[in-house]
């Protein structure tokens, strides 16, 4: 999942970035309003973490501008202003959630995850596909009751596929949501991670859940897809 972190206080940016990345998020950072505007419009982020007090353009103005121009990305307002009035103003400006500073990292992560789920109309934090269970809260994966150990990036890929279960996701979509702006885009990195994931998730289990659509991309087997014969 790719997150845009809009914050101008450098130490906080640094800590949040590290924390989010360790949670498996791809993190882009913008330190002022204009930069955030450009990045948000050019990339499809899953969640934007937006500070209110920003250089150049403040967070509320930016948010209103986005909403009026049809940017529907989920926004979590992060601000030092804590009065009810401030929260109401923030939410009414189009924010999906509001988290006052200072905050617990766990809470921030949980709220971001909730926003991600909401973005995919998913209420249950556990994503299921046949006998595969992905607990998005604990970030654990089980296949047929057996725990599957994944690296953060493998997990992120699986989770992304799971959120789009039954639908084809292209390599560029995967790239866009799983890698940040600084990652070097090499052509086969997605394929490599798909292979890793298959080794851990599908190997030894039936049916194979990660499907390849040649020329399009990958998808996680949906309920409509007929079970394939064992390879």
């Amino acid at each position, binding site marked *: 999942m790719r997150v845009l972190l809009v914050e*101008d206080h450098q130490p906080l940016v640094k800590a949040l970035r590290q924390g989010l990345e*360790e949670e498996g998020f791809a993190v882009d950072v913008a330190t002022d309003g204009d930069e955030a505007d450009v990045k948000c419009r050019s990339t499809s982020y899953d969640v934007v973490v937006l500070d209110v007090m920003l250089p150049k353009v403040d967070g509320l103005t930016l948010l209103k501008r986005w909403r009026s121009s049809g940017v529907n990305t989920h926004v979590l307002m992060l601000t030092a202003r804590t009065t009810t009035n401030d929260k109401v103003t923030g939410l009414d400006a189009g924010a999906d959630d509001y988290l006052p*500073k200072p*905050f*617990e990292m766990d809470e921030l992560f949980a709220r971001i995850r909730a926003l991600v789920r909401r973005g995919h109309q998913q209420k249950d934090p556990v994503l299921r596909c046949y006998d595969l269970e992905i607990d998005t809260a604990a970030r654990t994966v089980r296949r047929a009751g057996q725990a599957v150990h994944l690296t953060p990036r493998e997990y992120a890929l699986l989770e992304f596929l799971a959120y789009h279960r039954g639908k084809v996701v292209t390599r560029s979509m995967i790239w866009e949501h799983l890698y940040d702006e600084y990652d070097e885009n090499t052509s086969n990195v997605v394929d490599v991670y798909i292979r890793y994931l298959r080794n851990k998730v599908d190997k030894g289990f039936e049916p194979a859940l990660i499907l390849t659509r040649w020329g399009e991309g990958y998808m996680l087997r949906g309920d409509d897809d007929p079970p394939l014969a064992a390879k």
Partner: protein
Amino acid sequence: MRSIRRSLLGYLLVLIALALGAVGVLVDRFANAAVRTREASEEDRIEQAFKARHAEAKAKFDADLMAEAKALATEVQYKTAVLLGQNEPMRRLTPIEQVVAQVGGILLGHTPERRPGGPGGFGGFGGPGWPGRGAEPQPPLKASTEEARLFRLRSAMLEFVPGPSLLAALAPVAAVEPNLRGNDPRRHHPYPNWVEFDGPRVVARVQESLRASLVDDDHARPYQFQLTLVATYPNRAGRNVATLGARVVEDALLVAPEFLEPAPDVEPKFDDVNISDLGSCRRVVSGTTPGGRPIGFFLPLPAPPAPAVIAQYKNYPPFRGADMMLRVIVHTARPYSELDSRLVADQKERDNQLARVRAETREELVNLRARLVVIGAGTFAALVLGGWFFVARGLAPLRLLSDAVSLVSEKDFRLPVVPTELGHELAPIHARITQTLTLLQRAFAREKQAVADISHELRTPIASLLATIDVALRKPRTPEQYRGTLEECRLISKQLGQLVERIMTLASLDAGNDHTHVARIDAGELASGCAAVIRPLAAANNVTVSIHAEEEVILNTDPGKLREVLMNLLHNAVEYNDPNGTIELAVRRAGETAVFEVRDTGIGMTPEVRDRIFERFYRADSSRHATGVHAGLGLAIVKEYVARLNGTLAVESEPGVGTTFRVTLPALTIVSTLVPADRAKPGRAVPAAS
């Protein structure tokens, strides 16, 4: 606490009480005067009535006296006539009196028919040829029967009284008339030739006088004599004094009309006399009319009828023969005590009336005063109640204002009342309160904003700190990673500390706990120090800093504060400068002041922004957050410090061109460089370099 309502009411009531008192006193005085006047007029009336009664009583007294005098005169005349043998005295006496008189007469050797004998000269006169001439005298009108009888008795007695053997003759008379007994004939001698009427020598004296006048051959002039008779009535105090006077006119003499005129001194004349044993007495002197009773002794012919009019006396035929005009003048006196005794009742009544009038007046006054007091008390009570009510009404706007003020809260600073409802007097208070509330509201809002700002400014570093630590603790790290985290934390904490320091500085300045430590410094040196400190930051922002301090300026000030001021201004100049911009720091003298100027070529400010830059937490550009340490407090601190240093702070700015901050410090002791000895003083010069 004093109640305005009570005070107002108190003053009002004191005023009313004074007014009521004054009115009451005036009314009382006027009413008193009116009542007194009426009393006086009433008393006057009573007094007049009394005087009238008194006068009336006196007139009656006088009339009685007069009547008595006349009666006495008549009596004396009669007696005289009898003495002269012109009467028939016994005719009308009672039989007993006649007997007594006859006995007396016999004892004395006289008969009733005979004239009291004297030397023969008188023997021939008084014959029956004078019928009716000597009519019996009438007793006084008011005499009682007893008195009348006594009167007659005495008249009769006089007829019989002869000269020498009077005492023997009086013996039977004394039985009837006790007062005649034992009288000393010489008791009263007002004049040498006066005789007491009731004295034994009266008759003799009369006869003697008459005889002397008649016997005298010389008839060329009228003869006259005068006798005084004193009569005493038995039941009356006082003494009647009669004077018997007679004139004998020569027959050949014409009676001159003027002679016949009534003598003025014998007209009834009242006067007051003092009689030794009676005290003050009222006296009347009266006489018989001169022409009324001419007594002719020798003339057998009746006198011609007297003319009716006095003027006709001129034509009166000459009167022939001796004609004796006997005239009786009576002095009658009565003591005033008699009149006084009559007036006692009157006096008593007058006193009663006066006392009643005075009592009425007193009562009326008492009633009047009581009414005044009741009216005054009633009015006062009504005013107390009315005043309480009306004063409360009058103070209603005050209550309105008070209610309105009590409705003001920190949520709503408006004063919910219209000044027109309060009236002129409270309008200024209303205006003042409104003004104060507006100021308070602004201060409150500012304070709220400041608190929010402070919390906001503090929250961001705290959030950073927390996030950094949280992230570090999420999983095991290498020692290098921990070191990195700790350094991160130290940096954040340092910023946090600086921020807190600034907030505390401002709070301390606000609280007035700040102390200024004055020292002598070289302004140029201090400015150079500041410039040196700011240069690395400026270089990082591609800004050049130049300093202009041509002349040496020494002044007494707080170097720490001045340095803080300059540093803040320089920081701003760097922060708001354009890349490749310049900053000029100038130090110079201007008259008696030291001027520090920080000029940048930055973005400048609009006038609206310039008016607000000294507000706390205000940022001209809310985005300029990067340095983090100012948090919009820098210029607020500058302003406070300059004020503490008794200096002034001026800003000139033009958007896009640049901004100049000018700090002017007072030159209490600017020391010219021309006086190096001053600087050399040990302990005074302080190096300004940081």
